[in-house]
């Protein structure tokens, strides 16, 4: 067996194992990425599935536990609202009207039980408009 063939076999093993691991990882972690409207519209199909949903935190809906270990709010879409209960580390800038992405499992009751909450936080490129009237 020439060195080239030996190397090709070794490379084949690396590619094979990596492909298998990629398949295993993708199977375990894939999820639908939806807007709040899409999630509400397809709630029955998505029940008990892992989803990732984007939307805005509805005004007047945000409640954060005293130890900041849990938050509940309504995720506002263009036409529909999705109820969310989220556990785990909460971003500092979680606030009403903030655009967020919630990852978790959609319960049959239509509540999204989130375990990961992302906000568009370190807004480098789209800051809030400057104050034309004066200081804080």
């Amino acid at each position, binding site marked *: 067996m*020439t*060195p*080239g063939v*030996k*190397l090709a076999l*070794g*490379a084949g093993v*690396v*590619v094979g*194992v*990596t492909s298998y*691991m*990629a398949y*295993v*990882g*993708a199977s*375990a*972690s*894939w*999820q*639908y*990425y*939806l807007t709040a409207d899409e999630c509400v519209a397809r709630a029955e199909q998505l029940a008990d599935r892992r989803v*990732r949903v*984007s939307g805005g935190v509805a005004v007047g809906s945000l409640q954060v536990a*005293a*130890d*900041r*270990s849990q938050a509940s709010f309504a995720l506002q879409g263009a036409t529909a609202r999705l109820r969310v209960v989220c556990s785990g*580390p909460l*971003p*500092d*800038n979680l*606030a009403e009207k903030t655009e967020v*992405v919630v*990852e978790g499992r959609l319960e049959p009751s239509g509540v999204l039980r989130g375990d990961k909450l*992302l*906000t*568009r*936080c*370190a*807004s*480098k*490129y*789209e*800051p*809030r*408009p*400057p*104050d*034309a*009237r*004066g*200081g*804080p």
Partner: protein
Amino acid sequence: MRTLGEACLLAAFVSSGFAAFACLAGAGLPDRRVRRAGTWAARISVLALTMVAAVLAWALAGRDFSFAYVAQYSSTLLPWHYALSALWVGQAGSLLLWAWFMGLLALLFHWQARPPRSPGSPRPDSSSPDLASPDLASPESASWPDAATCSVFGVLMAYVCFLTAVMVFAADPMAASLSAVREGSGLSPLLQHPAMLIHPPVVFLGYALWTVPFALALVALSSGRVDGDWIRQARPWALSAWTVLGVGILLGADWAYEELGWGGYWGWDPVENGSLLPWLTGTALIHGLLAWQHGQALKKTTLGLAIATFALCNFATFLTRSGVFSSLHAFSQSPIGWLFLALMIGLAVGGVVGVLRRRELLAPGRPLRSVLSREALVLVATLALLLLALTVLAGTVSTALSALISGRAVMVGPAFYNSVLVPVGLTLLWTTAMAPLLRWGRGPSREQKHWLVGSAGVGGAVAGGAAWLGVRQPVGLAVAGLAAFAVVAFAGAVLVDAARREPVWTARGLLAALRQGRRQYAGFVIHLGLMCLAVGVAGSSLGKREQGFRLTAGQTVSWEGRRIRLARVAQRELADRLVAEAVLEISRGGRLEATLVPAQHYHKRQQEWTTEVAIHATWSGDFYAILHSGTAEGELFLTLVDNPLMRWLWLGGAIMVLGTGLRLWPGARPAARWAGERQAEPGRRRARGGPVGKTKLERRTRHARLLNSASKPFSWRPRAAQVNHDTSITTAAGTRVDEALRFADDSPADRVGDRGRRDGGPAGR
């Protein structure tokens, strides 16, 4: 001031466009005036960009809110250093910084590619007929800048023109505020962190540096001159780019670790992935350049990687600026991201076509001789890096692609990346550990085999020791074993080399081995840094523990062998924020180990809370405290995190930077700084450099020959530069240039072997 800035921006756009055109079109013309006009236009362009950056910095420092950019990213309450950092925080400002870096690097490339100026060289005759020939080029010569340098410079200036055009037409940093603004928006509190002061410019500098190897590869492909010349020029730029981008990524990780308040430093976020992709392909590129230089292998892959790495830098910009990808980081919907995507697609298509067009010139030089050779290892490592890059790319674009193809957006989570990282990462660590004890072109020597076995034994023993200490994860044991393997293999390589120099191991032989093989050992130091980083990643990923607590002042809890006492709670008010902090006393075995002060800051202007974590870092791990909130009754909610071996991660990064510094530190003058010098006739150097036999090179060579003829004639190891000089000077009669270059960075052992073969002597031991 704003008008001055606008005028300078426009001037930069026009002059960079002219510079690119003049250099690219003039490269093929015999008349040097077009090229030189292009060079001057480039200087004007960079000067104009410097002026634009200065105007914006002045406006930020003076909080001149008549600039829309200043009003968006600064405020009167912002400390001056963060106000200045706003220069690269916004879209337009970061583009300006990138373009400015790009222009400066283009000039630096032009400067460093100049041929050496000899004191005795005559002024050229401008009427010389040999205007297009690079052979006799000098700074004063009629043919300088030569065609290849001019083309590369033209490509670099074309990219400056592209970036400037984006600013002029889509993201103007000099735009005026639409209304009178008394107070700006200020900088997001999360970005007010020391790492964020330098993270963006370092990443942009990394992207800019990757443009140089790309331009060299592009010119090599388009001209068909795919010999060793572009490799020699590309390597230091590629290594610098790799290190700078790596440092930028680590700074971003440090920011995430300290500022986001969750004890993690990497989340496989699209933006993080965007910067990781060019780093991965760039790593493969650096090794591909080595394989090409030493083994005449991986030629097509290496050229493709140079183009792909630059294309991925543009893809990273598309990720952050298109608004297509959801990320932890903020994006805006902006058309400029699509410009970068179009450029990336164009580069990818053009690169494939170019490589296919030159495929005959890029055939492998020689077959693989051993699977235990460095070429084989580089092939495996390149494959692993490309697999990881493809995985990261597939995961990153999975959402957009699935939505495009099936109409339903699907995305993969961190488990996808982590699953692939295990086999690929272990393969990379294995190749990294083995590398010092292998040779180019053939299998290991007897001594090297002994050290390989010994290194494997030590690695196994360390893995066993780790298991005995309680490490149960196979990946953790493998990383520990491979890290120990790498350290012993590195020591073995140095000692084998030293033993070849002196019959008995002596400090002199050891120092000689380290000094003369500095550049190669610097590469192995970088490998050790990677090992160190891997230990940190494995330790902190596999052994992380965290626990939430509710504490009142004076209360003590025990956790992970430590006693944690909440000594007091304090509140204070600063100009721009309110601060609530908890003072925690951490003790172990009855001895006070550290006092940590995690805090919550309320930023008045932004009306936002930020978590300021407190970290007690030791070599065994980070003790990380997060203050979440408190009640009016004085009860605090905290999370404590034990992150094992985190400091090794940062140390690994520092070692990699050190290794790069050692590698790039100027040593003996490279044999062939430019093509003309290599191809010049043997007598030319003497005519310009002084009397025959009195050059530094000739003195060193003669001295070495005298020394070795007295002791060990067969074991003379010339310095790399000497070999190059000898070879390059004597190869004017037709020896291939890349043959001469191949020895530039060979290990001393390889050089002995190759020299032995060339001389008909022993082919190394």
